[in-house]
């Protein structure tokens, strides 16, 4: 359907030519990637140096998000809140060269969760503030009730760690060392955090240096003239993406597993209204905010995750900017799980509820853009923390990692196996050899794909993972999983994936299942098994190419019985070759008996 693209009001004589636009953009992206390199190379903790849990961005002189490149998607979509809060308290006109600001509080300072510390620095050129550089980085621990500050069962924001409203960390180049001291005194791993903190500041300094070089060559005028055009271009790209979605009102609803305090299912709902090149996404109908942390997505996270969901349908090779978000309108009733009120806990809900929200949007739009959405994923970040006292050093240790799982099948291919969550982007795992070197108290005994975990379909889901840790000493465990009860959904007849779970001492009489918990004491010698869900399938399993089913059997990822029962494919147990005649007969017989449609993981789509 043809609809007019809404063009931004730029007088023709002011319009920046498309060539200059690209040249300036390349310059800005260069500065951002240089910030990222500095942050990564000089950081100390595994979460920054291995996992890359940080993002660097640039704002224009009016505090508008100008450019972002690589990094954590959920961070990128939230950084404008951080800078808005800083500017509100420290007006741009009063900022001075050498000032640095920091924050982490979702409620007052636009933070995502408290471990994520934001730093912001104005960049001056010839006495004028020309840009703001900012970055956000996840600190291994920010205090609070449990090691790693990742407590699914926290009942209020105070239990989730130290709160940093927007504060001035440095004034005219002089650091407020006392503030740093307060910060470090509240963390379980101050040495790592101090190093990571230096890395964040080094990245800001890199931005300043590179910006000055760029301005020397190109002039400040080039930057100010182009800023509007960059944002307008970002807007047009997203509008063009929304244009492709037919106008209409699309709904989806379902349940998240539980909030960490209670396993009572959490109702979640979305209404997506497409109107020309604007999209309105509303979360009315979702449940009231919950007592436990895993059940609440702070408004900043809700906005950021919603933006990211839309970025999945957009040409984003250039990264988004503030203009990209103009056509995306978001609402959620105050006091609901997607817009909780102070002092609701929100740390683990960022992963659990935030990821669900992206998938709800996929489900709502599945029928109108079936080639662009995917089946259900393993869900949230699946973070696990093991922390305690290191007998060798007598200091505190914290192992914190976001795990990977299966992604849903899609129109053109199977889902990816063992990939980080929808909101985690280019984040990496911690290599087993690195983990054992830094945290000798953990011994990994298995690091594998979870066989049979993928949802069957014409294009099956990806496989989740199964990772076993043997405890060489005692520790406290915290876990925040989702998709244990409500499993990754299938689409268009695809089946759901197998759920996530964490088992302590599996297969023994003392086996315990944990899904969302913290403060769990794990004894020396115990085995901890972390399993993530497989992705949901796409399309009926009976339409899957028998050769691909045979391939999965040969590789031991599914059994010959699954091939027969789920896919209707007969496999020769000796050669693992598909028997095409027997398969045709099997599939015919199965078509005869199936009248009902496969389950859909508690999610409903309506139009």
């Amino acid at each position, binding site marked *: 359907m043809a609809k007019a693209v809404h063009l931004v009001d730029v007088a023709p004589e002011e319009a920046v030519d498309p060539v200059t636009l690209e040249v300036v953009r390349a310059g800005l992206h260069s500065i951002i990637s240089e910030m990222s390199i500095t942050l990564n190379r000089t950081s100390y903790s595994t979460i920054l*140096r291995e996992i890359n849990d940080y993002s660097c961005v640039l704002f224009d002189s009016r505090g508008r998000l100008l450019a972002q490149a690589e990094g954590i998607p959920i961070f990128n979509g939230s950084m404008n809140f951080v800078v808005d809060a800083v500017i509100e308290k420290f007006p741009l006109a009063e900022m001075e060269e050498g000032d640095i600001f920091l924050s982490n509080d979702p409620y007052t300072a636009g933070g995502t969760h408290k471990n994520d510390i934001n730093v912001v620095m104005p960049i001056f050129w010839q006495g004028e503030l020309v840009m703001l550089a900012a970055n956000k980085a996840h600190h291994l621990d920010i205090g609070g009730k449990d090691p790693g500050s990742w407590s699914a069962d926290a009942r209020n924001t105070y239990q989730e760690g130290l709160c940093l409203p927007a504060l001035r960390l440095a004034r005219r180049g002089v650091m407020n060392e006392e503030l740093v001291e307060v910060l470090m005194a509240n963390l379980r791993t101050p040495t790592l955090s101090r190093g990571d903190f230096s890395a964040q500041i080094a990245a800001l300094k890199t931005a300043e240096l590179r910006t000055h070089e760029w301005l020397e060559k190109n002039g400040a005028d080039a930057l100010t003239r182009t800023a509007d055009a960059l944002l307008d271009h970002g807007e047009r790209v997203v509008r063009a993406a929304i244009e492709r979605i037919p106008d209409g009102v699309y709904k989806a609803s379902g349940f998240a597993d539980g909030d960490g305090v209670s396993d009572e299912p959490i109702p979640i709902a979305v209404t997506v209204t497409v109107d020309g090149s604007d999209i309105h996404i509303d979360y009315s109908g979702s449940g009231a905010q919950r007592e436990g942390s895993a059940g609440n997505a702070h408004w900043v996270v809700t906005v950021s995750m919603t933006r990211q969901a839309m970025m999945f349908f957009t040409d984003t090779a250039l990264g988004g900017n503030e203009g990209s978000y103009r056509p995306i309108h978001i609402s959620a009733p105050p006091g609901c799980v997607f817009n909780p009120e102070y002092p609701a806990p929100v740390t683990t809900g960022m992963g659990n509820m935030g990821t669900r929200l992206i998938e709800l949007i996929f489900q709502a739009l599945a029928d109108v853009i079936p080639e662009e959405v995917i089946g259900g994923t393993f869900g949230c970040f699946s973070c696990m923390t093991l922390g305690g006292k290191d007998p060798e050093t007598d200091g505190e240790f914290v192992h914190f990692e976001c795990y990977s799982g299966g992604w849903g099948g899609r129109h053109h291919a199977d889902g990816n196996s063992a*990939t980080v969550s929808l909101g985690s982007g280019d*984040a990496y795992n911690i290599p087993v050899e690195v983990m054992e070197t830094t945290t000798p108290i953990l011994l990994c005994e298995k690091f*594998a794909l979870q066989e049979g975990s993928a949802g069957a379909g014409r294009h099956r889901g990806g496989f989740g993972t199964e990772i076993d840790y043997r405890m060489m000493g005692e520790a406290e465990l915290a876990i925040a999983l989702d998709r244990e009860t409500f499993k990754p959904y299938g689409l268009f007849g695809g089946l759901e994936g197998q759920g996530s779970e964490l088992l302590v001492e599996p297969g023994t009489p003392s086996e315990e299942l944990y899904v969302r918990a913290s403060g769990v004491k794990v004894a020396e010698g115990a085995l901890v098994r972390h399993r993530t869900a497989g992705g949901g399938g796409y399309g009926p399993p009976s339409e899957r190419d028998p050769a691909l089913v045979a391939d999965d059997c040969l590789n*031991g990822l599914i059994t010959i019985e699954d091939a027969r029962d789920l896919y209707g494919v007969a496999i020769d147990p000796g050669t693992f070759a598909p028997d095409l005649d027997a398969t045709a007969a099997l599939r015919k017989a199965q078509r005869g008996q199936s009248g009902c449609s496969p389950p859909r993981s508690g999610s409903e789509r309506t139009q």
Partner: protein
Amino acid sequence: MTARLAADIGGTFTDLVLLDSGGGVHVAKTLSTPGDFKEGVLSGVERILSDAGEARGQEIALADVDYFVHGATVVLNALLERKLPQAALVTTAGFRDVLEIMRTNNPRMYDLKWVKPKPIIPRHLRFEVAERVRHTGEALCALDEAGTREVARRIKALGIHSVALCFLHAYANPAHERRAREIILEEHPEAHVTISSDVASELREFERTSTVAINASTIPIISAYLDGLSQALIDRGLERELFVMQSNGGVITSRTARSLPVRTVMSGPAGGVVGAQFIANRMGLRDVATIDIGGTSSDMGVISDGLARTVDQSAVEGWPIMAPTIEILAIGAGGGSIAWVDAGGALRVGPQSAGARPGPACYGLGGDEPTVSDACVTLNRLNPDYFLAGEMVLDRAAAERAIRERIAEPLGMDTAEAAEGILRVVTANMNKAIRSILIARGFDIRQFTLMAFGGAGGMVAGELLRIGDVQRLVVPSNPGAVSAVGMLATDLRHDFAQSSVQSFGEVEWGDVRHALRHLRTLGAERLQADGVDEAAMHFDDALDLRYVGQDYYLRVYVDIDDLDGERIRSNFDRLHEHTYGFANPEFEVEMVNARVFAIGAFERPRLPEIDTRQAPHGPLTPKARRPVFFDGAFVETDIYDVTALCADDAIAGPCVIEDPRSTIVVMPGQSAAVDRFRNLSIEVAA
């Protein structure tokens, strides 16, 4: 008459360089034959020998070639096309899926259509055996020898002859890997077993597994290729062993290459940087960023303080390779890169490329997408009648039409302006990549000279200088043959590393010396086997150090006979300050790896020199003039033939300098100076 010969086999063309003992340099270019690369090499060899013989008036035969080196493009190509023979992988029990899980990241973070690469070795050919070593080297669980034997039998029964072995923490204690190799060879004597502690004795299981898996999977490929080529060359009279370029910038004998193909993956691009290093050294340039611009991509490299920089890890199509490699950053921007208008109305160039077929619209082979080459033709910077010395006539009308219809009209621009815009956007992207490779090392781009070469290097040289952040740009003589020159301008080299993470304060320097000596012994053995005299052997020793808690280490070169902890420490702090802008002398440091680089020195070639302009030459005169589009208008522009240039000539832009294999564009406001090797230095005119 003796001669040294190098062949750089690219995806489209094979470039050859022959140096005769009289100091003559001969260059040839032939089409590559991707079906069987051997054929292209053989026809290139035939051609260059006859050309060189003719030029010298004295026949040169293969028997006169006492050194023949070439790039192992077959290995890279097999990886890019994923045409790999079956190999098996054996891992510690519980870890066979490490290869398939990879590092779990999603490199295209907003792209739901991204498909994770299929594992190099499929799951049904990945086997597990019980054994476990800790990070300290302590064996927690002995190797299950019976289980290993059983696995070996299964591999043999499957008819697989190449086996990769990667056990957890094998870098800290290789005993289990070595024993398992023995057992596999006992059961399956025809097998070739690659063990991770030999190939990449460094921390990180996925990267190490990927490295051995690539090695095992490409052994059959390189063996078949080298066997075939060696035999064909011997049949034609070659009496010497073939040498193969490595990713690290040194060469190895083909015998070594057969068991370590993973070390040769980036040989072509590495040759380019080494060639640039050689040329830069002759020109007296210490700090040079290099850009090798081809049809589909550009490869950047860095030469600092006269030396090509290396990294310890690289990747091909997402598969990491742990091996010292000349640092190369490849981006999808070249002569064939396609320009397009995005949904937001911005002009973008690449990463899609028209490739060699159908190629740019101007090739007239059915391509209708506007490319960088089409922009050059539209602007009249590229002479349609003199492409590859006139062997191919370019279709200017088709180039113009593609740019007008796909770019100019949608953007409301003039066709020539749009073409100029395409060049500015693609060079801005190249500049971004050059910056990022320099900054990763803490270098200041303004201190660097940019050396642009490869088929399309000269074409955008002037634009690169204008848009970029460097102050000076060099286009070397014979820009298409730089990689082959590099292969003739390097040494035999073997790299050895031993991971051993320990606190710097607790380091026993006697143990370090012992470890370095051991690595040197391995190096000397390897060089001796290559036939290198002891007098020509040379060893560099280094330690990789970092602040405790950091991930990335920095390499500090040390004197094996004078391991002074304090000095090493202060050298590290200084290096950290230089690289990252700060140092923490009070922080604890740890040692990560000990490294030895074993080098067997070769004589350097001499580059031919040209005369300065004397009376007989007459004044420098253009061979033609034609209108060329610069800065918004067509300007009548001088066209020079490269062979008309003499040493110390200076030419003011705008002008175009043509040679049979490339075109160099000097922009208005720039000037070019010719040196005695016929390299062109382009600067902003004073």
